């Protein structure tokens, strides 16, 4: 068995993907830990590795009309250093791991790893991110909430690679992100909350609410958001208890080493309440 491939172009990578059962790897910050065997031992992979992180086609950030196109291999550090990336997205990224890991980890890797605690995901869900999946035979575009199908599970087909992440090039009037962890640096998320809204003449014209690390995948409800749009901020303020009650059954966390289900649920609803209260003070 060949141990690994280092293609020179994306096209070459896609052809290898078509012919070989292999594992795409970018920075390796998740995979090297998942497959680690301990002190001084080589991580054990059961498939040949397909190195793709360095491919130039996967390392661009560009503005295309009203969209921002982010290559799947773009590093978390590159996101933070780019003037094209919205500040509210950077707020989440700068709380991920630490600089030596962010210098390795790619945004595409965080998506494909599909951890319920993946820290780019609440924002990417909230802005209706589209993913471009390429194979040697063609390409398809999939909304992120359809791509991630469960914890560590995605809809990526055997011959495909995630090549591009497409987010809207727009800024919301109200931006709110909180990550709840044991400490500031190097912490894995107990719960994360992303809220964004637009308010015009005291009325809510758009709202996005997403929760991370409290269900098998990121929680977002377009139905509940729709019931809020068009209402005045005063109405929203009065309806806070009802809105919290609507979200409560969607937040289904687990007890684990990092936190308890009860704490996670409580803190999420408190963050939602705080967001709604702050929002209702906007004009």
């Amino acid at each position, binding site marked *: 068995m060949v141990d690994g491939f280092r293609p020179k172009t994306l096209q070459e990578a896609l052809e290898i993907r078509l012919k070989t059962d292999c594992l795409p790897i970018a920075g390796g910050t998740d995979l090297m*830990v998942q497959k680690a065997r301990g002190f001084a031992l080589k991580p054990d992979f059961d498939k040949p590795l397909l190195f793709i992180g360095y491919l130039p086609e996967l390392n661009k950030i560009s503005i295309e009309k009203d969209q921002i196109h982010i290559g799947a291999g773009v590093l978390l550090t590159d996101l933070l250093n780019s003037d094209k990336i919205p500040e509210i997205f950077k707020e989440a990224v700068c709380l991920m791991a630490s600089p030596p890991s962010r210098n390795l980890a790619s945004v595409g890797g965080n998506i494909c790893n599909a951890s319920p605690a993946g820290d780019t995901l609440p924002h990417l869900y909230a802005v209706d991110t589209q993913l471009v999946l390429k194979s040697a035979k063609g390409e398809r575009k999939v909304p992120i909430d359809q791509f991630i199908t469960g914890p560590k599970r995605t809809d990526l087909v055997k011959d495909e690679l995630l090549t591009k992440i497409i987010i809207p090039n727009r800024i919301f009037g109200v931006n709110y992100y909180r990550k709840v962890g044991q400490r500031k640096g190097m912490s894995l998320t107990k719960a994360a909350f992303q809220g964004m809204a637009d308010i015009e003449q005291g009325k809510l014209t758009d709202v996005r609410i997403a929760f991370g690390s409290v269900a098998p995948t990121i929680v977002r409800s377009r139905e509940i958001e729709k019931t809020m749009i068009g209402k005045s901020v005063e109405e929203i303020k009065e309806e806070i208890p009802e809105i919290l009650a609507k979200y409560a059954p969607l937040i289904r966390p687990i007890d684990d080493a990092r936190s308890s289900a009860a704490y996670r649920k409580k803190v999420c609803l408190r963050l939602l309440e705080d967001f709604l209260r702050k929002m209702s003070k906007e004009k």
Partner: protein
Amino acid sequence: MKIEFILNNEPQTIDVHPARRLLDILREDFKLTSVKEGCGEGECGACVVLMNGKAVNSCLVPAGNIVGKSIVTLESFKETKRYQMIESCFLEAGSVQCGFCTPGIVMATESLLSENPHPTDKEIKEALSGNLCRCTGYNMIFKGIHLAAERGQGLW
């Protein structure tokens, strides 16, 4: 897999499994033992080296990702004026006790100062957030870095 890279300013060609960790290549194959294995999960920073000038956790880097890259460990960095400045300031500020975390902290300091020669306290804490120390205490380490930035004017 045949891998060509630059290690401490010298070109190298090695033939290793592409999943082999950079940490093990440095320690086992090249006997560069300044690079420490602490957690092996990218959380402690004891294995931090420079890859193209930036701090990275060498326990997380598969060999397949070092092709064409320049890797610098403390063994060659210690020959520089920048290192001498960091060393004297760390000694003065009492930034070293047992020393296990120190190589990683020195490399993270170099990565920070080379990008930002005049860091604020917050920026130092942020840059060092991936380096754990269990005995010296962070305040003395941050003080040593402040001193190096102050006295090292023009070095970075």
